[in-house]
């Protein structure tokens, strides 16, 4: 069965030059393990096709039940150089929550 991440996690994103980070936050260890298995760096990169031009890295912070993704080439050159409406990538977080993952 598939579920959209918005039902499982909260998210916040931020900018640094042309890179954005998106952290996913979950309520418990079981959901953390599920995301660890399903939300890989590769899948996040595929999800952001057309927005993110570079690689995606994933970092783990189990102490706060969070996964942190760093998206390279995510901001059309960076906030002061971008033509986009969302120059700071503050909404990339909610865009990630659109992703569907297998939960069975």
């Amino acid at each position: 069965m598939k579920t959209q991440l918005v039902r499982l996690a909260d998210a916040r994103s931020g900018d640094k030059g042309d890179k954005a980070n998106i952290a996913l936050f979950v309520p418990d260890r079981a959901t953390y393990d599920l995301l660890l298995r399903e939300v890989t760096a590769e899948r996040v990169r595929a999800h952001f096709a057309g927005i993110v031009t570079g690689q995606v890295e994933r970092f783990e912070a189990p102490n706060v039940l969070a996964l942190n993704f760093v998206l390279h080439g995510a901001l059309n050159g960076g906030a002061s150089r971008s033509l986009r409406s969302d120059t700071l990538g503050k909404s990339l977080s909610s865009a990630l929550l659109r992703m569907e993952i297998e939960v069975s």
Partner: protein
Amino acid sequence: MQSVRIAGGLGFYGDSWRPIRASIERGDVQYVASDHLAELTLAILQKDRQRDPSLGYTRDLVPMLADLLPLAIPRGVKFILNAGGLNPLAAREALLTALKKFGVRLKVGVVLGDAVLERIDELQATGVALSHMDTGQDIASVRERLLFASAYLGAHPLVEALEAGADIVLTGRVADAALFLAPMVYELGWRWDEWDKLAQGIVVGHLLECSGQATGGNFGGDWRSIPDLAHIGYPIAEVFANGDAVISKAPGTGGRVNFDTLREQLLYEVHNPAHYLTPDVDVDMTTLHMEEIGPDQVRVTGASGRPAPATLKIVAGYEDGYMGQAMIGYAWPDALAKAQAAAQIVQQQMQEVGLRSEETLVEYLGYNSIHGPLADPRHTEELNEVYLRIAVRCMDKREAAKLGRLLTPLGLSGPPFIGGAGGMIEPRQLLGIWPTLAPRELIEEYVRVSVEEAGA
């Protein structure tokens, strides 16, 4: 145990200082540390300084302190602000003039030496490549277009200013969290090699540096559950001599401090949480523990630190053309289809008039201007309204201005039912950001601190 109480100030140039009043009046704080410089802000300040060499600092400095000092002075509250931006001396000049007018006698410290644009050649001559930190690109490709270059300094010079008796410390670019670490080191007597304590200090600073983002603002969880955002309190930290800290906010303010609001801020703009590099310490956030100990009170313990890096980060900005943009709105029925037709007309005409753009972006506000290609394409037929926004990047300002003139005629000669054209928007200069690294001793030998008594 000895402790120090620090209030989070602004989170960026343009932020509200109203919540800081509550932190001073009811939060029992000794310091306000205020971050006026987002990465983007130096680009804005550079434009100010280009217009007028006596500018280049964040001009919220004087009105903010005019409002807060009457509350702060009787309570002995000190300020640490990076409002100096690209021109800390001009910021101090403006502040001294204002203090004199208020008849207030205070010591103002200034930290200099972060601005390194004039030293690029010298740094390169010593063998520092200054190539792009992420792409490895040679700085020669942007060298002639550089407008500013600022190194992120650590807390050392800020502590020096406090030791010299400064009531207000003004800096240019320093690591945001260093604004907060400085009063901890000064008040609690931490040594510069007590890595775990410094790491705790940086974590606390990082939690406080974005104002309302720690207290329920921009909260990605159940945002409806956050009370009274109209009167949001900014975060306050009490930090103990052993490095333990409690994050809270002033009584009677809105917003929320709990595990969820704080963990969102903990990872904000962080890359590898096990190696959060700052000028003063390499922080491991994955060892820390956050525990709710009361309403709007969270204890933070256990961050660990490793020795400070041998390099400092520099962020430079370079001219990268101009953005021209224009908007026009369309109403139901077929709002999106009409906006798409309008976009096609404009793009065709751009070619015919020979508008030379390096890059063109088409967005539909109300449909995909925020999520771009990830917007849900279903149910678009029934959208009540859609705004077309076209943006171009041109190397020449006049070229960028041509775009607006192509959109306005659509009101009479395009698809039906427009809902207000956005009007002509003045082209805006675009700045590319160049992050790089330099050996810290080459930067730090130029760092200077001066403290002057002013007023009355």
